[in-house]
C-alpha cells in the first residue's frame, strides 16, 4: 500500500510573494521514494521557492501564499502543523548554518533540544555517533565534539548540518544548492554521501550544476519561469529532452 502512494507529491502547487505575480505556477509532480530528485532551471525560476514550500518555510512570512496541495504520504501538509511537517521533512541550506553557540555534539542534537525533547545521555551519544558516521564526519570530529561547530571547515559544517537534519529521522530531505559554497573535494564528498543516504531518506535537491544532477539524481525536474517544464528520468532528460526550453537550457543557449 505504502509503495503505491508517492512519498511526496505536489498537486497544482502555487506560491506567490506578491498579489500580482506567482513565483511557482501550478506545479504537479510525484516524488519517488528513496530516490534523489534534482531540481534545475535558470536563476529566479522558482526552485528555492518550490523547495521551501515543501517544509512550510513560507509560513514564517505572512505575505507569502501557498495554494494547491502538497502531499506527504498522501496527507496534505498545507493543513498540518508546521512543526510536525518540518520534523518529517528536513532541510539543508545553501550556506552551512551550524548554531554558533552550540558544540558539535549539541548541534547534532539541536533538533531535539530545540523541540524541548530530552534524551537520556546514552541515547544522545548513540544518536550523535550514528548521525556523524552517516555523514562520514565521525572520524574527523570524534575527539573535538565539545568544540564549537563553527570551527569546522565549510564542507564539514555542511555535513554537520546534514547530520543535524538526519538526527530527526526525516522522511524527506530538502537541499537547496548544498554544495555551491564548497570546493570540488568537499562537493564530491557530499555527493557520495547523498548516494549512500538515499537508502534511508528521499532527497530533493536544487542544483545549478548539471554534472552533479547527472552524477547523483535518478529523476530530474526542469523549471522555467515558475512552471515545471519537464520532469522525468535524469538520463532521458539529458540525452533527449522533450521540452524546447529544457533543450536550449541544457545546450547552454539559455542562462
Amino acid at each position, binding site marked *: 500500500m505504502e509503495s503505491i502512494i508517492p512519498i511526496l507529491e505536489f498537486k497544482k502547487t502555487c506560491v506567490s510573494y506578491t498579489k500580482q505575480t506567482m513565483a511557482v505556477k501550478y506545479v504537479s509532480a510525484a516524488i519517488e521514494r528513496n530516490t534523489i530528485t534534482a531540481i534545475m532551471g535558470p536563476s529566479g525560476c522558482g526552485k528555492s521557492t518550490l523547495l521551501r514550500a515543501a517544509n512550510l518555510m513560507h509560513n514564517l512570512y505572512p505575505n507569502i501564499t501557498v495554494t494547491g496541495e502538497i502531499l506527504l504520504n498522501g496527507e496534505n501538509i498545507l493543513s498540518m502543523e508546521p512543526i510536525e511537517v518540518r520534523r518529517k521533512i528536513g*532541510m539543508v541550506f545553501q550556506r552551512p548554518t551550524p548554531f554558533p553557540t552550540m558544540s558539535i555534539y549539541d548541534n547534532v542534537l539541536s533538533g531535539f533540544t530545540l523541540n524541548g525533547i530530552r534524551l537520556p545521555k546514552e541515547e544522545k551519544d548513540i544518536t550523535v555517533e550514528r548521525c556523524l558516521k552517516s555523514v562520514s564526519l565521525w572520524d574527523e570530529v570524534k575527539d573535538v565534539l565539545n568544540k564549537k561547530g563553527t570551527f569546522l571547515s565549510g564542507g564539514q559544517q555542511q555535513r554537520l548540518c546534514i547530520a543535524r537534519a538526519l538526527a530527526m529521522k526525516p522522511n524527506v530531505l530538502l537541499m537547496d544548492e548544498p554544495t555551491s559554497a564548497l570546493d570540488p573535494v568537499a562537493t564530491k564528498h557530499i555527493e557520495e554521501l547523498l548516494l549512500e543516504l538515499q537508502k534511508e531518506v528521499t532527497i530533493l535537491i536544487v542544483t545549478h550544476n548539471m554534472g552533479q544532477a547527472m552524477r547523483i539524481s535518478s529523476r530530474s525536474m526542469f523549471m522555467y519561469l515558475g512552471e515545471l517544464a519537464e520532469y522525468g528520468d535524469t538520463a532521458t532528460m539529458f540525452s533527449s529532452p522533450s521540452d524546447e526550453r529544457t533543450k536550449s537550457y541544457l545546450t547552454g543557449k539559455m542562462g
Partner: protein
Amino acid sequence: MNDKLYKILLFASALIIPLVCGGVIYALFTDAYEAFQHFGFLKFLTSSDWSYTQGDEQYGALPFISGTLMTTLLAIIFCIPFSLSVAFFTGEYFRGTKIATVLGTVTDLLAGIPSIIYGLWGFYTLRPIIMSLNISPQGSGVLTASVMLAIMIIPYVSSLSSEFIKMVPKDLKEGAYSLGATRAEVVRKIIFPVAGSGIFSSYVLAIGRALGETMTVTMLIGNTNNIPDSITSTGNSMASIIANQFGEASDLRLSSLIAIGLILFLITAIINMIGKMMIKRARIS
C-alpha cells in the same frame, strides 16, 4: 607643499581633543589632591561623614558612592523586563511591521528628551504617585530616582539590543525552524544566545549612562547626605551632591566635591570602556 600644510593643520586640530581631555584629568587630579591628602584616599572613600562645621570639616564619599550604585543598580533591574520586551517586539516578533516602526520611533523620541523634562515629570507626577501609594512619606528618594532613571535608559537599551537581535542571521533562524522549532524556542535557544553578548553589552553601556546622570537624580533623590538605608529612603548620588553643593563650596569642601567627581569619572570611564569593548566583540562575531 600644500598637502603638507594641510596635514599639519589636521594633525594640530586632532591633537586638541586629547589635550583637552588630558587637561580635564589633570585639573581634576590637582584640585582633588587637597582632599585626598587631608583625609587619605582610602579614608575618603570609606568615610560617611559629611559635615562642614568650621574647624572640624569631615568629608567622605561613601554615602554618594552608595547612592549612585543603588540608583544605578535598581534602574537596571527595573529596566530589564521592559527593554527586553521592546527589543524583541521591534527586533523579532513584529519586525518590519508598521506597529514596530511606530514603537521604534517613539522609543527613539523618548531617548531625545532632555533630562530636565524627565526630572520635572518625575517630580510633579511620579513623586505624588509614590506618596499616595504610601511607599514613602516625602515621595522623593532612591526608589523614585531609580524608576525615573530606568525610564530614561529603556529607550537606549532597547534600541541597542534590538539591533543585536536583528543581526542574528536569517539562515540561522530558518535552520532552527526547519528542525521543527517553534517561535518561542527559536527566540530562547537561538536568538537569545547568539545576540546575548550584544544585549549584555548594551546594559553595560546603560550603566555608564545611569552612573553619571545628574539632573533627574538631583531633582528626585531627596538630597540628604547619608547612606540610604532602604530603597525608599532619601540620599544623594555622586553627581547630585556635586550639582547641589558646587556653588557654595570652597577650599576643602570644593576639593572633596572634585575628588568625588574624579572617582565618578574614573568609574564611568572604565564601565564605558568595558561596554564598548564588549560591543565591538559582539559585532565582530
